[in-house]
């Protein structure tokens, strides 16, 4: 017998799942990514490197800046472009802005209805209007940062290899810093709500992040430093997304992995909250990715005001650095809100001749299935089928999956 989970809701993109039951026991769980392919690796070929980050941004709207920046970093590595410190700081600001936008979207509008027992955020407005409005205010700040750094709320084209098209003004940075500070107390509230969730899903035994908090030249996986080629990618016939393993274990990427492997360095509200909820985080149940995101949201708000202040004090070098070379090969690792994102290109005569992308949702496929399997085993038989399905969907949602990003990257 097969229990079919209908197309997932309150996630981005089209995916389903199947739970295979044999003789009354759960045998297997399959996540079927059904989103149509979008061919980005092919579309980038033959294009001038300059045009590629804008194209790659279209992979995902929720984290378009992560894609632009991963793409730009891969190009800069390939063509040996060295950007000033202030350019990197502005990019970091943009990525924190994206974490704010994406985490608040996920926590307040997509996941919160699960905790409070509603079908969606809109129907929560009557009784929980306050918290939804707080979430929207945080989200709006995230989008303002994306607009200032990226050029538009969605799919801006301001992030360029070597620098930016337009640089932000002092007034814009001051405004961001002020707003970020004032929103910390809202974000704090949501941490408590997600800390109340019961442990669910698989345990993230093999967590992976980039070597620095938001990017890096290497990946860190349970104490080891690796390149993405060290991972094993396995295609499956029932899905448009491949599964990734490290030494035979499924990998987990995302906020929980970041908080687990990196902690939160600066002292502040986020650090205090992490200490308070450390036990839950260290239990590694993937449902606590929600909690980790909530703590990280507070961290992001604190970081954003700090980076703005640094930029205001140190000044910005408004340049676009030209490449030294016309060919080369480079990888860009960035932490998108939902985890490690890889862009990799080979460039010849200024044109992309080979391109590969691996997205966080693609990395998480294996552990997503494992989570469904373990939860189904835990709950099968003790719940009516409809409630079981709804509970299983909650675990999928905790990954904050962006299904359209997982599909086009299977084999080069």
């Amino acid at each position, binding site marked *: 017998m097969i229990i079919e989970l209908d197309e997932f809701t309150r996630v981005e993109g089209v995916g389903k799942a199947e739970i295979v039951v044999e003789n009354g026991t759960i045998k297997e769980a399959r996540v079927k990514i059904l989103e*149509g392919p979008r061919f980005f690796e092919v579309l980038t070929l033959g294009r001038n490197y300059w045009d590629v980050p804008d194209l790659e941004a279209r992979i995902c709207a929720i984290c378009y800046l992560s894609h632009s920046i991963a793409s730009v970093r891969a190009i800069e590595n390939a063509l040996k472009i060295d950007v000033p410190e202030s350019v990197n700081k502005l990019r970091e600001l943009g990525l924190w802005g994206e974490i704010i936008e994406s985490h608040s979207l996920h926590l307040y509008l997509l996941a919160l209805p699960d905790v409070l027992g509603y079908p969606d*955020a809109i129907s929560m407005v009557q009784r929980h209007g306050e918290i939804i409005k707080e979430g929207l205010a945080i989200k709006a700040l995230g989008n303002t940062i994306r607009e200032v750094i990226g050029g538009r709320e969605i799919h801006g084209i301001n992030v360029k290899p070597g620098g930016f098209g337009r640089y932000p003004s002092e007034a814009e940075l001051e405004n961001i810093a002020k707003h970020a500070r004032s929103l910390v107390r809202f974000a704090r509230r949501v941490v408590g709500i997600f800390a109340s969730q019961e442990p669910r899903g698989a345990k993230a035994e093999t967590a992976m992040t980039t070597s620095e908090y938001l990017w890096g030249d290497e990946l860190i996986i349970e104490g080891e430093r690796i390149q993405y080629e060290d991972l094993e990618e396995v295609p499956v016939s029932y899905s448009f997304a491949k599964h990734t393993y490290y030494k035979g274990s499924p990998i987990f990427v995302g906020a929980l992995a970041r908080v687990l492997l990196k902690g939160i360095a600066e002292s502040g509200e986020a650090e205090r909250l992490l200490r308070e909820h450390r036990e839950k985080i260290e239990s590694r149940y993937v449902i606590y990715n929600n909690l980790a995101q909530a703590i990280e949201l507070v961290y992001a708000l604190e970081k954003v005001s700090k980076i703005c202040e640094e930029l205001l004090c140190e000044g910005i070098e408004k340049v676009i650095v030209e490449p030294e070379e016309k060919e080369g090969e480079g990888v860009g690792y960035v932490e998108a809100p939902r985890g490690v994102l890889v862009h990799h290109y080979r460039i010849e005569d200024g044109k992309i001749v080979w391109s590969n992308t691996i997205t966080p949702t693609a990395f998480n496929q294996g552990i997503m299935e494992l989570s469904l399997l373990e939860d189904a085993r835990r709950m099968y038989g003790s719940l009516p089928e409809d409630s079981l399905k709804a509970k299983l969907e909650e675990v999928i949602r905790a990954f904050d999956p962006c299904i*359209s990003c997982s599909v086009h990257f299977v084999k080069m």
Partner: protein
Amino acid sequence: MKLGVFELTDCGGCALNILFLYEKLFDILEFYEITEFHMASSSRSREKLDVAIVTGTVSTQRDLEVLKDARNRSEYLIALGTCATHGSVQGSVDDTKAAFRRIYGDIRGPTKVFDPRPVVDHVPVDFAIPGCPYNKEELFQVLMELARGVEPVAKDYPVCLECKLNEYECVLLKKGIPCLGPVTAGGCNAQCPALGLGCIGCRGPSMDANIPGMVEVLKNILPEEEISKKLRTFARW
């Protein structure tokens, strides 16, 4: 009035942008009840709709079924975003079969895959709003007009016009930066030239676009094969 939002193959941006309307979303909710919106809600309704919004391209069998169902159940259908109106990035792939094989090898995949095509190629639509993503203000206006029983009017001028109205410096002629503003449908308020960058054509071709003229101008700046790649990022011209 009842409103449904349907997502086919895309990046999720056009559906997401509806949530980015913030307070304006609450204004919309005064006239509309959103009975279906899979990205935002778990309730699944099979009701008749006054307005259906469809984003994305028809790239799979599943997409086609969702689209036909949306068309059959709705009075008024809006194709929203460049994926739905012109095909956007995936719609500009030349040879889907070869591209598919190149990325997926021999795997057939879980559903039937089609050549990605815009919604407008498959069903009659009542209104189309291009943009990757579209301008939120434009969607808001259109929904409000429909709520008042007014038929919205499509924009029929190029990005260049908006650039001039804003008195931006022409990036193409003054700075020699490749810009598709002269042949791209306006409505975004010339967002990219505002940053000193060339328009990359994300809203698709404008009415009466003079493509040969555009190519002639770009030839002074870009090699020819790059011109055609640039033009064909969001639409098959």
